[in-house]
């Protein structure tokens, strides 16, 4: 059951989590970094609010939330890259972009995130189930058993899908020519 990006529910979840991301960045204005713990933590609260709107198929919400998180992180990474590449008037953006580089979080490198996002879009055309698996695992933090339940396949299938998707994505991302 691939998430419908244009559904109202998706829009709502997305807005919720984006607002959270913005706030957690606002709390850390000097470093301009996303605080993953704060984001993750507030996601609990946001999802609580979404659920108040009425009963939902739980697996559907899980998938939507994972997709929303992906989009937020990728947008953030894109914005950071845009600043890193370009430089604006009076050295403004130059300074700002330095803040990013000096305090970039250790885990998610924006280049990697953006590259992963593009590769995932391609993978979705090749094998949508694998793409969803990666989204649920990498952005939603789900274990293979949970993913198996959501996708209605066996855990062994998820393991196999993961091995293949991982190899495919790595080849795709590392084969792309980028400075780094």
């Amino acid at each position, binding site marked *: 059951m691939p998430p419908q990006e244009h559904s109202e529910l998706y829009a709502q979840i997305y807005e919720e989590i984006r607002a959270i991301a913005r706030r957690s960045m606002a709390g850390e204005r000097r470093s301009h970094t996303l605080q993953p713990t704060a984001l993750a933590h507030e996601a609990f609260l946001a999802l609580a609010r979404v659920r108040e709107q009425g009963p939902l198929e739980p697996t559907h919400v899980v998938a939507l939330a994972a997709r929303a998180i992906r989009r937020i992180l990728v947008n953030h990474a894109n914005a950071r890259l845009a600043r890193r*590449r370009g430089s604006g*008037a*009076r050295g403004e953006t130059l300074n700002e972009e330095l803040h990013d580089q000096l305090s970039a979080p250790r885990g998610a490198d924006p280049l990697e995130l953006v590259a992963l996002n593009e590769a995932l879009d391609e993978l979705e055309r090749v094998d949508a189930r694998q793409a969803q698996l990666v989204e649920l695992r990498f952005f*939603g933090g789900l*274990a293979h058993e949970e993913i198996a339940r959501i996708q209605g396949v066996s855990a062994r299938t998820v393991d196999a899908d993961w*091995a293949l998707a991982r190899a495919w994505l790595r080849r795709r991302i590392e084969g792309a020519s980028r400075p780094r």
Partner: protein
Amino acid sequence: MSRQSQIRALFLEALAAPAAAREELLRRACGGDEDLRAEVESLVASHEAQECFLDGGALGADFRVSEALARSDELRIGPYLALALIGDGASSLVYRARDTRSGGEVALKLLRPGALSAQAVDDLLAEAELLRGLEHPAIARCLDAGRASVHGAQTAYLALELVRGTTLNVYVRSTEASTRQALELMVAVARAAHHAHERGCAHNDLKPDNILVDGQGRPKLIDFGAARPLRSGADSARPAGGTPRYSSPERRRGGAPFDAVASDVYSLGAITWELLTGEAPGEERAADEARPRAAVATELRGELERVVRHALERDPARRCPNAAFFADELERWLAGVAVLSPRPSAARRLAEFARANRALVGGFAATLLALLAGVAGTSWALQRAREARDAEREQRELAEVRLEQAQAARERAVQGAHFLGQLFRQFSDRSRDGAEKVEAALVEAAGALPPALEGADEVQLALHHSLGVALADFGRYELTVEQLERALALAGGEREEQLERRAILLLDIAAAQTLRGDQLAALERIDQAQRLADLHASISAPTRLRCAVARASALIERGSAEEVRALVAEIRAQHGYAPGPLSLSLASIEGRLLIDDGRVQEAIEGMTPALAAAREQLGERHDVTLGLLNNLGSAWSQAEDFAPAEELLAAALEGRTKVLGERHPETLQTLHNFASLRRRQGRLEEALVLQEQAARGRAEVLGPLHPRTLLSRNNYASQLQALGRFPEALVELRGLLASAEVALPERHWQRGLYRRNLAVLLHEMGEHAEARANYEACLELWVPQFRPDDPRLADVRHLLSLLP
């Protein structure tokens, strides 16, 4: 079997086999299908390589979206179980929650994890402490407070009396409460506020959203999050916080300490005003123009209006003295007893009169013309009197008397024209018909002035000066400059007042030229004024200050940051922080210097009160206000707080487009900043379009080689690059660099910037040798110019180190 399934099956089979046996296995299984074998082999190789970022999670190892869902069913905070989210603020969330010990329900205020800090926890616990000292039926009680761990994060909570009801405005609207009922609610609220004041604390954020009305129609004051204990008597509140719509002028202005009790009283007045009229007081619109709700239109006139206006007095010293007095007054009115609130002050009445009588003020155009004619007429009289003096030497005495009379009459006429001119400027609203008529009249007057009167230069000069200044108010800067230049040509002499006037005229001309977009001509005039000030000690301090601020504004345009910094420090040392447009203008310059230094937060802190003050003192359309809107918006944009950034930049863009026109350099600057905002928001396509507009506009208005045009072209190229349109970006950047080498001085820092950006693009395109050469050229330019610890240097060195 499809190709995909084939690949999958072989891949899994190969992984299951021992590494040594894989090659053989694949060769056999693929038969002659070399493509298939290559595909699977490459996937296996990719699988075998060491661990990669995909193995972790984007949000760390602890994050499980499914747990988030499961746990969101049961959000436990200490002994409380959250049931529903009922409030959502910037730093806290409010839940309806059940106390698991008693089974009762409470309103549970919880710090947002994202806003969690030791300070925030202390503040929340301090709020509890404050509330414990209060005991009033119209104040929601604090039941409990403490620290708790929520989903692994340490946070603090506050359990408050749960009020089942709606906010004041919703209640009044939905129940269609009568004026009487609305006022009775406000009496209770004012008494609650007074109770808090007596117990030594001000609420500091009184507004309809913080007043709930329960099922029995009883109001309850909530959210003491901004409340602070009063210290000894006055000057107790810190200026931050508050909701502008209901905040007192002194709170909105910020900067100086003020009386928090008086400020709360103002908010009570503002809430009452809004309840009665449906509109906020003082918001752009004059109070008299606010449309009272039909039902209370007649009631708000007369004594009730006096009571509410007394609470809304701008000057805290004249304001209704305390909340209890306000409550008493409302009760007196409700009881039909004479109120004690005084009539509004004379100045306020005058302002209200002028606002209420715009049509009449519009008719002022005719008056002004008549006065100008009067000035001209009296000038002729003066001239004739002088001639008489010369001709009739024998009747000297009589002639002197006539001369004196003529001079006095001229003086009165000039002063009258100045006075009316000022009054008019204060109350004029450029968007109105009346204003257009005045503008037409002024233009006509400018053309109709009699030719230079021999011996009457003074008068002629005064006329040109007044007219020029008045025309500037309508954005007719070219006519302004023309009039002022004519005045300047007449302003000779070495007497002190003549020197002073020359300096003022030069600065007025510079201001008009700046607004016209002719920065270079402006700087020349400012330098002339500066020379006058340097040569003549008699030039007054205000004029010197104006000159210094104008110089700082002009220099910052040219990127001479060090010079400006020194100048600003000197101005502050000599002139301090006197209030007024110059100080606000200086605050704007200081804000920009801080932004350039990367000290965005300090820039925001400095400019926020300045903008509030500028809006209040100078109005929304004043250039200083527009400049502050632009700079503060830009600072928020860099701080990545997009909501205020968007609001302020949109206001600046709209204002500048209206006042200066869409092709004006300042308007283009704001457009440029707006494009940067869109880029930061990740809305790259929109950013590209805006950036192109700004670049093209600047090329046409400022010239293709102007430094600002170059910066816009640079950003346009960056936009292309961010969108992956590398070949176009490369063409742009190479062209840009060539232009910079023609247009900019050899050591100009922008040259280094373009080198760096070209290098980054080449780097990304894999042209490593050329990238390296450009990084190095950039460093060569920048190292002698920047401090060794300047982050720009570290940035380039870091990029260079990334090259293979």
